[in-house]
Each structure stands twice: as structure tokens, then as C-alpha cells.
């Protein structure tokens, strides 16, 4: 596997095409869970975990079930079911094995099912690493890499945002802008800053 491809996927997923700030995927949790740093970190970890494993599962399902059976057009339905049942499974396992972890992550897990970033990354994997239903070389490893770093990018944006919003509580914001509107304006400035990475070339 070419190091150049690996690096360009990492930089692109974390900075240039950051899922939240330049592709607008996963905005609801981005605005909902970014009031404080601590829950933002938990949510970020949960998203990284779910995204990576969903990327893995959906790749396997697509490659070994949908493509051989010629059911590629059922992609959306199958993927959302895989993700939803996987999240449910993770929730049950965590509840049974580690109640402490459950208290930290538990309430965020159901939210992740409807997080468009997760479905987004799985569809993106298929779009980039399969050409006419044929897997590209090393597409499995690259899909996994892309899912993992998309999760990292999401968490980075979320945690940065929560840091800013904690400070913002002390600021004097005009009444009609307080809450979600000001969060959007901040996100806009962050997105502007992230656009600065556009010049990276390999």
C-alpha cells in the first residue's frame, strides 16, 4: 500500500474534508452534545468506535453479500439496518460488561444510529473504493482507515467546538442569537480555518 495514499486519506478526512465542517455530516450531535467538553469527548470516542466497525461490517456485507447476489441497489436499506443493529448490540454488550462505561457512553449510542456521519462514511467508502461493483486493490484496509480517520475528524471538531462553547457561556451574546445561531456562526469560522488546509498536496 502506497504511503502517499494513506497520508492523503488521513489529512483529507481529518482536516480538508472534515465531516462536520466541510461536508456537514453529523451536525445534529455536533450541536447537541457540544455544550461541555466531557460529554463531547465521550461522544467522540463512541463515534470513532462505531464508525470504524460499521465501516468494516458494511464493507464485508457489500463485498461478500450484495455484490455476488447482484443486490447493490439495496445498499442504503442494508447499511442502515447493519448500523442500527450493530449499535444496539454494542449497547447491550457494554451494559452487561461495563456499567461504568455504559454510564459514560450509553446515552450517546442510540443517537449515533441516526448520525448521518456514520451512514455517510459507509456510503463514501463504497463510492470511493468500489468501481462498478469491483473492489479496488487494498480497498478493505483503505475503507477501514477512511472510517477511522473520519471518526477522528468528527471528534476533533466536536471537542474544539465544546471548548469554545464552554467559554461562550461567559460571553454577552445578543438574545436572539444565543444558543444554536451563535453555534452556527462559530462553526462557520472554524470551517473557514479548516479550509486553510486545502493547500496540502502530496
Amino acid at each position: 500500500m502506497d504511503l502517499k495514499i494513506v497520508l492523503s486519506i488521513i489529512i483529507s478526512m481529518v482536516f480538508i474534508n472534515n465531516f462536520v465542517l466541510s461536508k456537514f455530516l453529523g451536525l445534529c450531535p455536533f450541536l447537541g452534545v457540544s455544550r461541555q467538553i466531557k460529554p463531547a469527548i465521550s461522544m467522540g470516542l463512541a463515534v470513532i468506535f462505531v464508525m470504524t466497525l460499521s465501516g468494516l461490517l458494511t464493507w464485508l456485507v457489500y463485498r461478500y453479500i450484495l455484490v455476488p447476489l447482484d443486490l447493490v441497489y439495496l445498499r442504503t436499506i442494508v447499511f442502515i439496518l447493519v448500523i442500527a443493529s450493530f449499535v444496539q448490540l454494542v449497547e447491550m454488550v457494554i451494559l452487561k460488561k461495563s456499567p461504568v462505561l455504559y454510564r459514560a457512553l450509553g446515552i450517546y449510542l442510540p443517537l449515533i444510529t441516526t448520525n448521518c456521519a456514520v451512514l455517510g462514511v459507509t456510503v463514501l467508502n463504497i463510492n470511493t473504493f468500489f468501481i462498478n461493483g469491483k473492489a479496488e486493490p487494498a480497498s478493505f484496509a483503505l475503507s477501514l482507515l477512511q472510517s477511522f480517520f473520519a471518526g477522528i475528524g468528527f471528534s476533533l471538531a466536536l471537542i474544539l467546538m465544546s471548548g469554545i462553547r464552554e467559554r461562550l457561556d461567559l460571553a454577552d451574546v445578543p438574545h436572539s442569537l444565543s444558543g444554536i445561531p451563535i453555534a452556527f456562526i462559530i462553526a462557520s469560522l472554524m470551517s473557514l480555518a479548516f479550509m486553510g488546509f486545502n493547500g496540502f498536496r502530496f
Partner: protein
Amino acid sequence: MKGLLKEFSKGIFRENPIFVIALGLCPALAVSVSLENALGMGLAATFVLVCSNFIISGIRDIVPSQIRIPCFIVVIASFVTIVELLMAAFSPQLAKQLGIFVPLIVVNCIILGRAESFASKNRILPSILDGLGMGLGFTLALSFVAVIRELFGSGEILGFAVNKAYLPATIMILPPGALLTLGMLIGLTNLIKSRSRK
């Protein structure tokens, strides 16, 4: 009859999915680069919303409440697939521009939100009207954002130049412009609401 009309009209302004309840933001921002994309996305989402509300309201007494969410998602995902295939067949250009956001209608919070909070509790006719109203409210809000972005970002509306001498502010059609526009518009909605309450 009046009640039905109310179900229809609430989605358009009073409970507008984007400006008031702030749901379904992801597609709203991503596809609002031009009015054409916004209308395509809005109509696709409206179609899914109306059809899924119809089916979900019809099966609401059969589905056990523990597994209702997965059932709703399957219904929604089926209609999204229909839209995806139809769009690819009849308007490949639009399908290409909306790209990944067509399959992502599945996880648009408005659709599951309406299924859960309205269609699973109400009869079929009000549910259809609710879906139609919410869908049109979504389309309207999306077009509003898109018109602002297209006008300032490329100096055009639906591809027609408004003022040839205008130097476009490209930032408006880039991601930061979308976030800024939406933030300002939600702020404006809040302002209007607090004024009218006084």
C-alpha cells in the same frame, strides 16, 4: 377540516423543521449551493416524508412498540431507495450533484422525527398532510438558504445572472457561507418570534 388544515400549515412556518425545530440540518447545508439542488433535495425529501408517513400511520397498530424504530427505518429506507433509483433514471445530472446526500435522506432527522412523533400516533389523512406540510416547509427553508447563497456566492438565481457587474463572494457557496447563512437566518427567526410575542 380546520384541524386538517392546521396539520398541513404548521410545518410551513410555526414549526418549520429547519428554522424552528432545527432538524434535518445536514442536507439543508450541503445541498443549498444552488436553488436547483435545493428544490431537488426538498422534493425528494417531501416525497419520502409523505409516503413514509402514510405507510407508518397505516401500520401503527400492527407494529409492536419495542421494535417500532427499526420498522420505521426500513419503511423510510425503502422509499429513499425508490427516490434514489428514480432520480438516477430521470435526472442523472441532479443525482450526480446531490451525490451521497440522496441515500442520506434515510437519516434525515425530520423524517424519523415525524414518523415517531406524529404518524405513529395519528390517523392516515392527518399524517399525510403533516408530511406534506413539513416537506414543503423543509423545501421552502432550503430554497431560502439556497437563494441567499447563490445570489451572493455566484450572483445568479437558478443559473441566470442577476447583475453582471457583481463580483461574487465565493465564500458564500463554500461551507463556511452555509453555516453563516443558516446561523443568521435562525437568529432572525428568533428575533421575529420574540417581537411578535410582545
